[in-house]
């Protein structure tokens, strides 16, 4: 006999009402009017129940770099962060640039994964920018988007061809916006801190000029452009302008860009080394404003794990990238919701329905009939970020030691719990909902 799970007295993420949600056989079901012999009840009083979070921008590092992360460890981290679906970038070794590798990623996840994994395929062969990858075949194999993330598509002509060629798939091209020549050998944002530390800087214009270029190419080709991990005020303004003009352009940003400035690099702290780099206070304000006014379409983590040995090097030698799956929800609540920039419901939408729309992923809701991909979290619970407790193999985060609010209590994917906080307890009982006829 199947097991019935009841989330009792939870707060509905959108309406704020107190609800009881029942799950059986992997889907949300109406609350049974009769008793149930195999039921578990979770007292969710004080917690918010929402569709599982979706992250369109993670690096799971497989194939090829399993010392940094695996699909198993990465999805485990996703589950701990409240995510039930992630889209993984193709800048692996080798790059996911063929239908065979797209299928490999899909099948690798199988039933054992702790979150649904949607592969993003490379735009160009080997992400080298020289030749289009088989975009149509990879779309048929299950790719949900295309990207050379980690590397910009440097040639405007190549990006034009990719947009034209990919159009029939209807899938967006996720653009890593960085002019390689403007970036040069830069390792952090160009500005006072880089000057003080004697580090080579990456100007904000390295990102914004490429954003402008790709918006123009979206207009030229009608192809879908999704601007990845935006970090500068000018980039947000370009996205805003594209929306105003009705172009098929969307954009995303990450928690570190709405919280930190490049001063977080402090004394050569590689935990603050990411690409794009942390920017200025003006950029942080612009990021928050772009989220608040709806310019930014969805939030992502750009979860980019590296081994501690790789990050524990002199700043210029260490790789770009920090982890983010396990802190994303709390950073959203602490730095977007609590200061009043967005409502909790809007924040959740930016992590759930909004990304699903951009990659055309199946809808998830709390209504009966919906697949039971859910997250239960306590928005008021305080905790201290401790990378040693991460499920990700990556440990680098600029938020280590910070006290944040919003703790994931349980994550459920397809009716199965993929994460449960240690203090979550079930009652097992014969269920007789209040007022139900027996």
């Amino acid at each position, binding site marked *: 006999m199947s097991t019935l799970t009841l989330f009792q007295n939870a707060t509905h993420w959108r309406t704020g009402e107190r609800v009881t949600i029942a799950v059986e056989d992997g889907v949300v079901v109406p609350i049974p009017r009769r008793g149930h012999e195999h039921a578990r009840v979770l007292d969710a009083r004080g917690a918010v129940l929402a569709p599982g979070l979706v992250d369109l921008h993670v690096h799971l590092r497989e194939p090829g770099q399993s010392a940094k992360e695996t699909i198993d460890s990465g999805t485990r981290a996703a589950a701990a962060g409240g995510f039930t679906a992630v889209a993984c970038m193709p800048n692996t070794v080798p790059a996911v640039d063929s239908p065979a590798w797209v299928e490999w990623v899909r099948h690798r996840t199988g039933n054992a994964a702790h979150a649904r994994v949607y592969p993003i395929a490379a735009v160009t062969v080997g992400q080298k920018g020289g030749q289009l990858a088989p975009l149509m075949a990879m779309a048929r194999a299950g790719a949900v988007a295309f990207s050379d993330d980690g590397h910009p598509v440097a040639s405007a002509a190549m990006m034009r061809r990719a947009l034209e060629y990919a159009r029939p798939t209807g899938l967006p091209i996720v653009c890593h916006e960085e002019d390689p020549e403007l970036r*040069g*050998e830069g390792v952090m944002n*160009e*500005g*006072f801190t*880089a*000057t*003080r*530390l*004697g*580090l*080579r*800087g990456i*100007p904000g214009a390295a990102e914004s000029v490429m954003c402008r270029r790709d918006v123009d190419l979206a207009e030229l080709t009608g192809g879908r452009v999704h601007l990845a991990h935006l970090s500068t005020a000018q980039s947000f303004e370009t996205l805003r302008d594209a929306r105003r003009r009705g172009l098929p352009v969307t954009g995303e940003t990450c928690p570190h860009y709405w*919280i930190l*400035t490049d001063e*977080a690099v*402090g*004394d*050569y*702290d*590689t*935990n*603050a080394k990411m690409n794009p780099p942390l920017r200025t*206070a003006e950029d*942080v*304000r612009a990021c*928050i*404003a772009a989220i*608040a*006014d709806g310019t930014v379409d969805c939030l992502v983590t750009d979860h980019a794990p590296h081994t*501690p040995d790789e*990050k*524990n*090097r*002199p*700043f*210029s*030698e260490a790789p770009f990238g920090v982890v983010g799956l396990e802190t994303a929800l709390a950073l959203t609540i*602490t*730095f977007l919701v609590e*200061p009043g*920039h967005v409502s909790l419901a809007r924040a959740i939408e930016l992590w759930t329905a909004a990304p699903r729309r951009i990659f055309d992923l199946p809808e998830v809701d709390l209504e009966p009939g919906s697949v039971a991909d859910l997250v239960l979290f306590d928005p008021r619970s305080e905790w201290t970020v401790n*990378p040693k407790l991460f499920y990700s193999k990556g*440990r*680098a*985060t*600029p*938020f*280590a*030691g*910070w*006290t944040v609010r919003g703790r994931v209590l349980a994550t459920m994917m397809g009716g199965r719990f993929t994460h449960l906080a240690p203090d979550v307890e079930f009652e097992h009982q014969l269920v007789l909902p209040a007022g139900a006829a027996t």
Partner: protein
Amino acid sequence: MSAPSLPAPAPASAGLFSTPPAAASGRHLLGLEGMSRAALEGLLEESAAERDWLRKGAPNRDDLAGCSVMLTFIEDSTRTRTSFEVAARRLGANVFTFSASTSSLNKGETLLDTMKVFEAMGAQLVVLRHSQSGSPAYLARHLPRTGIINAGDGMHEHPTQGLLDLLTLRDAWGGRFEGRRLAIVGDIAHSRVARSAIAGLTTLGALVTVCGPGTLMPAEVESLGCARAETIEEAMTDADGVMALRIQQERMEKGLLPSLVEYARVWGVDMARVERMKDDAVVMHPGPVNHGVEVDSTIAEYGRNVILQQVANGVAARCAVLRRCWSAWKAELS
């Protein structure tokens, strides 16, 4: 909507680098930035005393007896390495020189691994020259029993060069920095010498004006505490000194200068420009000089050209630094 305010300052990261060492404290000398005025003046006083002692040609001392100093120059250097070596030997240290070209660094061993080996062998002070900014700070975090002396890290700082420059200016300016103004000309972006000089001079109350081609000027340079002039004439007028920086072609990306001929014409220090300065103004250069580029050959005859004094003061400044770091090492770790 009004512009949202930034979040309140968060607690310091407790990540890999949870305990950043102060720029110059205890057994380390990582930079002049952040050093207190009192500490800097004290170090200058000691440097001056060392200079007087060296000038006398007195016999070697044993201040560093029992101290092993590892000269680790991952990047080429002649004058700085030799200067440190002379200083350490004059004070009675055991001096070892590490040659990167014949080391395990060529077999893939990391800098930290190599330095841990030296630490295990008993090297108490490491004098490090490295092409990457922040390398000395990185080692200082990870080597619990070694003092690190920065002998130039990438484009960041060269604190002992800064000290010798300050000592030279202290002599030239009669010990008074307050209200004095030095023009620093040239490749500010790639210059660790400039960063240390700016940090030291501004701490002591002097004013610094930088100027140079826009391609060689770092972003927001004024935030270092200096002024920026558009032309060398503007920078040098009424200055108390000028420091011409070496054009470091080995550290530059291509295309930053049209030609050295144009550079010499527009940014070179010549007598016509020197005459714009105050009568007692000095001409400095950290060396080695690209003759006819940063400094016109006529400057060799200028009576207040202190370029060789800078070299001589280098040994004195390094004596003072080695002695101080060794004292701190003993106090902390012996």
